[in-house]
């Protein structure tokens, strides 16, 4: 298969994925115990209000019509109104999604900045003390819950040492980034541990590869052997891992945002559960799954440019 064909096939694949994501989210809302509408409005809602919402959401029609209606609305970005905030869900998400995406983006950058050099050090010193130290530290990072790490960093660095802001989100763009710094570090730690574990293993595999021996036999400078031959090949699997990890990262963002009171979609999701704001939960589940599948697609495409063998 040639490159264009592969890209086209991969792009087309995402359409049924979107529809299935819609189906899951749709089924999920139908699983609400009792009448979803009264569940949304609570026990003390008036009959009039129930009937109005019922008609508004199309609950008086057949289940298939309802699903198609749901899909149609999802495509046009109409998820109804938030019960708690009394504004369109789409607007609510549009305001907060950039915050979450910035947070996860920053976390990814921090994680790579931590993991890549340390993985190199660990792999080059495999089974000697620098390797052991790095692996133990990351094993601890891997076993530490995000909310705990966040609380500790928040208290020590923000409340006690006053290096970082305790909460809030600031006014300017730069201010926002400053407020996101500590949450991003928190989110990055366990991600870095995952990357480092994977990259260390793949580096050790590549270091054993004959083409690395060949590169050394050619008399190439050490940094060229390390960067062009070892790291570049080892990073191919890491790119896939980073892509596949987006789901865990978004899940982590939910917790991080709750700990640091970051006004992103993660905190919105948790707040919405306590507010029984089902339209928001439904829309967020859908939007986050769509983001994940798009990231998977992009990962595949990046993979293709990194590894010429993929389209074979």
């Amino acid at each position, binding site marked *: 298969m040639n490159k264009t064909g592969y890209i086209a096939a991969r792009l087309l694949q995402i359409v049924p994925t979107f529809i299935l994501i819609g189906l899951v989210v749709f089924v999920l809302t139908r699983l609400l115990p009792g009448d979803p509408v009264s569940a949304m409005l609570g026990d003390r809602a008036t009959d009039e209000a129930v009937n109005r919402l019922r008609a508004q959401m199309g609950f008086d029609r057949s289940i298939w019509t309802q699903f198609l209606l749901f899909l149609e609305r999802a495509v046009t970005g109409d998820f109804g109104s938030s019960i708690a905030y009394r504004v369109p869900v789409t607007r609510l998400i549009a305001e907060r999604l950039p915050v979450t995406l910035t947070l996860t983006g920053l976390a990814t950058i921090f994680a790579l900045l931590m993991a890549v050099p340390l993985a190199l050090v660990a792999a080059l010193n495999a089974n000697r003390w620098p390797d052991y130290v790095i692996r133990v530290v990351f094993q601890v990072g891997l076993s530490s819950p995000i909310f705990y790490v966040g609380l500790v960093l928040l208290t020590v660095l923000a409340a006690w040492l006053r290096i970082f802001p305790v909460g809030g989100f600031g006014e300017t763009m730069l201010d926002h980034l400053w407020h996101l710094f500590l949450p991003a570090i928190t989110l990055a730690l366990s991600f870095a541990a995952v990357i480092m574990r994977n990259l260390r293993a793949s580096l050790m595999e590549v270091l054993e590869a004959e083409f690395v021996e060949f590169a050394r036999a*050619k008399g*190439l400078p050490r940094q060229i052997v390390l960067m062009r031959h070892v790291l570049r090949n080892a990073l191919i699997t890491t790119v896939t891992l980073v892509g596949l990890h987006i789901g865990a990262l978004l899940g982590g963002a939910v917790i991080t945002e709750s700990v640091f009171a970051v006004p992103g979609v993660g905190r919105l999701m948790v707040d919405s559960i306590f507010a029984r704001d089902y339209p928001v939960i439904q829309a967020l589940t859908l939007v986050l799954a769509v983001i994940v599948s798009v990231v998977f697609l992009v990962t595949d495409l990046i993979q293709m440019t990194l590894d*010429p063998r993929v389209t074979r």
Partner: protein
Amino acid sequence: MSARLTEPVLRVDNLGVRFDTPRGAVNAVSGVSLTVGAGEVLGLVGESGSGKSVTLRALMRLLRRNATASGRVIWRGEDLLAAPERRLREVRGREIAMIFQEPMTALNPVLTIAQQIDESLVAHRNLDERARRARAVELLDLVGIPSASVRLDNYPHEFSGGMRQRAMIAIALAAEPSLLLADEPTTALDVTIQDQILKLLLGLVADLGMAMILVTHDLGVVAETCDRVCVMYAGRVVESGPVSAVFASPRHAYTHALLRSMPSGEAARQPLTPIQGQPPRLDRPIVGCAFAPRCAFVMDACRAATPPLMLVGEGREAACLAADRLAALETVA
């Protein structure tokens, strides 16, 4: 083919390689001495685990981190085992190059052939980009890859096995080395392709005035291509000499057994006799001749001390106490 009388370009003195493993030390190579003259093709032959590939890698100090090399590797009067890493990088690729058994794994899968030639030229030759490109095309032509300028931008997986091996040879030859180390260069290839690659290598050796050390476990390849041969067993050279002489009348019981264990055109009427037993483990000290437990000519003295390499003819050495009996055997037959 016989530039043997000149001073050797490479002289290996008492080379030893020890691997430190969690389960103890392994002496993969011990007491190996050999020479290679300018333009000479030396065969290094032995079973897997006999230390031939380790020896080859030790010459350029391309060993794993847990390995320690001892002895001397004198390249044009300079001891490479004592040379600083910086100097070694100048020697590697420019003066001594190496090719491997499996080009699929020895070539970097994510770089084009052009890039893999280019980085060698950048490291060793002072050429501008256009000159390097021209040199790369020239190299692919040299190793017989058709439509060189197009194939140059292909990735390794886009080549067939034989072509890939040619590409690897082209990359290794980029900086015109004077010695080529070839580690089982044909083992991974189809029989018909094997022949082509060997002919190519021999042609290149002759045309470019290179010397070559060819590591193989295939006696047929040695017979066809080499001037001299070193037979290795359990990390030691047990016999060396001109190929024709060694093959016609071996002076080490192992070489003898080896030749009898394989079908060959010359000794076609003899029944094949496989060698009984297994090579010894190298993680324990070996007392006496390592081949003694499997040897048909063994005597008590063999088990007492390792037999030294002794002169057994013109330019021939063997480390076998039964050398005389083997010589007598040949005259009777």
